[in-house]
């Protein structure tokens, strides 16, 4: 079999008609004079319907038609070619076919335009990609825009952040200042307390031993005693502020406590101030030192009264409250989130500005006139609340009034009945020869305690440190009570001594005394359950009552 070699080679016509692109020739006015089969197939027209009957621009969408006249034709005329124009061809069936057109202008011998050769590429897929790319690009631009916006507001956001940080630091500084002031006042009060104890003891000794009938000396001793008691109260308040007062926390029903105070409060407030108490039903119980809570409420009431010289209304409210994480996180001082019992004291008084509010808990800060206030009331309240694991919050508006909210932790799982208010005036009770061991490293203090107890009718043994005390205990099995300072010189503190002694004499009552303490006997300012403590400076009567009660139990 022979093959006609000629039939193996594509003809120019084949190449033209079946090219993968459309070929068009038009006159300078656009009239189509020649088109290949590819183009005819795409456009859906018969050759005879196109050639000589239609212009290229007739096949375009309206946008393309305008572009053809305003850009395409002028460009072609001026530069002789136009490349890569994205037209939409309108096919016979109405479909639009996206194409790219390249066009060359052919001139005649005289240099006049003779014919346009237009090459048309099917750009349907390409246009689809374009749209997707455009979409992606728009997304990217939006993201960039968003980033830019974030960057532009960066300064503002940083400023805001810094302001918040500064505020937090300020709060922290405030808390640290309170802490430092607390340390200082606590230290002073402690030492001062020891001195007061000696002073009180010696004045009492003088009072007892002064010859009858010497009225002048007796009066002088009374004045000295009175002043000393006031000094003792002052140091007590300082200790309270510095969270170093020994507390005796007990289960409290705050409603009962507030209700029980109304008579006292009415007398304190006077007639121009209306007292209103709003007590919540179903109030949880809390645990705190009831005496100190009462003190705190009286303190707040007195402040409120002073803020309402023209009269007004004092409201004491109780409520169950929940301090959530967000709230406590914003506080400078550590307060655990959870359930609290709220006692709020509100007045309709003058209120205070921000600067006052910031300093109001500082000791000796007072807005009252000289001689009218110690500046210790609110700081004492603050110290008590913090020491009781509570939280205190002050809200005030100038001219509107002030609300002080005390949050005390809810007491859960205690069946104890709320404490009854202890008797206000301790009864003076004498001893009947019982043997008491007094351990105190400060000789003057020891002498005062020994003297007082002997005066009360007890038999007293004394030791200056733990070692001496233990040897006395060995030799004197008749000892019925150990009275010891918490802090002792000589390496053994009161707590250890007590443990040693009670090992030898199980059940022996132990009475501790201290100015302030953060050690063995007082856990975070609280007495261990079942422990007895008498705070320095203690009075003769206090000591008498405490010792008698312990011996009788």
């Amino acid at each position, binding site marked *: 079999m022979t093959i006609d070699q000629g039939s193996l080679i594509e003809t120019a016509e084949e190449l033209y008609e079946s090219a993968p692109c459309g070929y068009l020739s038009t006159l300078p006015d656009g009239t189509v004079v020649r088109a290949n089969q590819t183009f005819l197939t795409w456009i859906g027209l018969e050759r005879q319907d196109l050639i000589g009957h239609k212009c290229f621009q007739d096949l375009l969408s309206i946008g393309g038609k305008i572009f053809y006249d305003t850009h395409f034709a*002028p460009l072609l005329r001026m530069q002789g070619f136009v490349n890569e124009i994205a037209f939409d061809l309108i096919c016979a069936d109405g479909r639009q076919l996206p194409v790219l057109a390249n066009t060359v202008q052919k001139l005649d011998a005289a240099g006049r335009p003779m014919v346009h050769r237009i090459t048309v590429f099917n750009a349907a897929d390409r246009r689809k990609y374009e749209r997707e790319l455009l979409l992606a690009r728009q997304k990217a631009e939006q993201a960039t825009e968003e980033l830019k916006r974030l960057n532009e507001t960066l300064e503002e956001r940083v400023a805001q952040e810094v302001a918040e940080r500064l505020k937090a630091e300020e709060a922290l500084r405030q808390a640290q200042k309170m802490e430092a002031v607390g340390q200082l006042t606590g230290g002073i009060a402690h030492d001062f307390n020891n001195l007061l104890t000696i002073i009180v003891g010696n004045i009492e000794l003088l009072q007892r031993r002064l010859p009858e009938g010497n009225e002048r000396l007796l009066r002088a001793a009374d004045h000295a005693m009175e002043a000393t008691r006031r000094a003792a109260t002052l140091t007590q308040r300082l200790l309270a502020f510095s969270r170093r007062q020994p507390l005796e926390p007990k289960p409290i029903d705050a409603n009962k406590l507030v209700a029980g105070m109304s008579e006292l409060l009415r007398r304190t407030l006077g007639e121009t101030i209306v007292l209103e108490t709003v007590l919540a039903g179903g109030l949880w119980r809390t645990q705190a030192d009831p005496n100190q809570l009462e003190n705190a409420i009286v303190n707040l009431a007195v402040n409120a009264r002073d803020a309402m010289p023209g009269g007004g209304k004092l409201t004491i409210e109780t409520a169950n409250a929940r301090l959530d994480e967000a709230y406590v996180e914003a506080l400078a001082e550590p307060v655990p989130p959870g359930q609290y019992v709220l006692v709020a004291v509100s007045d309709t008084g003058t209120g205070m500005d921000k600067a006052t509010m910031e300093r109001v808990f500082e000791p000796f800060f007072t807005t009252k006139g000289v001689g009218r206030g110690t500046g210790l009331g609110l700081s004492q309240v603050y110290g008590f609340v913090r020491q009781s694991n509570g939280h205190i919050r002050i809200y005030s508006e100038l001219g509107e009034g002030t609300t002080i909210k005390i949050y005390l932790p809810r007491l859960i799982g205690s069946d104890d009945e709320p404490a009854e208010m202890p008797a206000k005036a301790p009864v003076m009770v004498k001893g009947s020869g019982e043997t008491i061991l007094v351990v105190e490293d400060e000789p003057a203090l020891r002498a005062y305690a020994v003297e007082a107890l002997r005066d009360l009718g007890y038999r007293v043994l004394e030791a200056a440190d733990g070692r001496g005390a233990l040897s006395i205990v060995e030799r004197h099995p008749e000892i019925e009570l150990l009275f010891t300072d918490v802090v002792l010189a000589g390496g053994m503190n009161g707590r250890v001594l007590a443990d040693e002694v009670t090992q030898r004499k199980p059940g022996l009552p132990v009475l501790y005394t201290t100015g302030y303490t953060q050690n063995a006997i007082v856990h975070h300012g609280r007495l261990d359950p079942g422990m007895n403590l008498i705070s320095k400076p203690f009075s003769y009567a206090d000591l008498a009552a405490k010792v008698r009660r312990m011996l009788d139990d």
Partner: protein
Amino acid sequence: MSSIIKQNNVKVTGRGKQPMLFAHGYGCDQNMWRFITPAFEEQYKIILFDHVGHGGSDASAFDPMKYASLDGYADDVLSICRELDLKDIIFVGHSVSAMIGALAAIREPERFDRLVLIGPSPRYIDDGEYVGGFKQEDIEGLLDFLDSNHLGWSSTMAPVIMGNADRPELGEELTNSFCRTNPDIAKHFARATFLSDNRADLPSVKTKALILQCSQDVIAPEAVGRYMHQNLPGSEFVLMEATGHCPNLSAPEETIAAMKAFLRDPAPIQAAA
């Protein structure tokens, strides 16, 4: 160089005294006049310029507010006239610049001797009885078209897609080197052009005008040219054999002949009144 001269890429040639100011239309730049001006250089002072955003103009001078209507472009024409102290001007405007020239002549009629209006249209969109040749949606179609297609895909779409607008050289290989136009401005100009309606201004034109109307002009159909003629006092109307919208390019000889015939005509403007 004064700022307006630089801003609009103003070129002055010709050996004559009377100024002939050429204004290109929507689409290209002063290159549009390359086949026309040689015929007038001997007798006239030829002034060519590019509208802001086109050709060699300073695109940074583009102010979307100013150029939102044709008045902003007429401002520039008058600024050029003032800067070059042009008087007795023969203004030759193509396409939309025909109307821009008419607006300038209304504002400072004393500067203008004659107007040659090539393919003018006072309004492109049909309006009741008025036939402008386009519907509103056609113009939207053009704007869409321009989005993907300014002067060739590579110079328009590639930078848009690739985000290399600051590296135009990447798209230049295959594209069209004449009539360089900022795509955003071109689109803005298209909007100002095709949405314009200056029919009410026509009776205010006191300058003698020639209307050169092409056959089969899609942009400014014959009916529009005739409307111009009827509403432009004392205008002359010439229906050309040339087809399309750019006789200055496709039929320069016919265009030149019609202009010369008009310029020789001594008929005074008073005829209009």
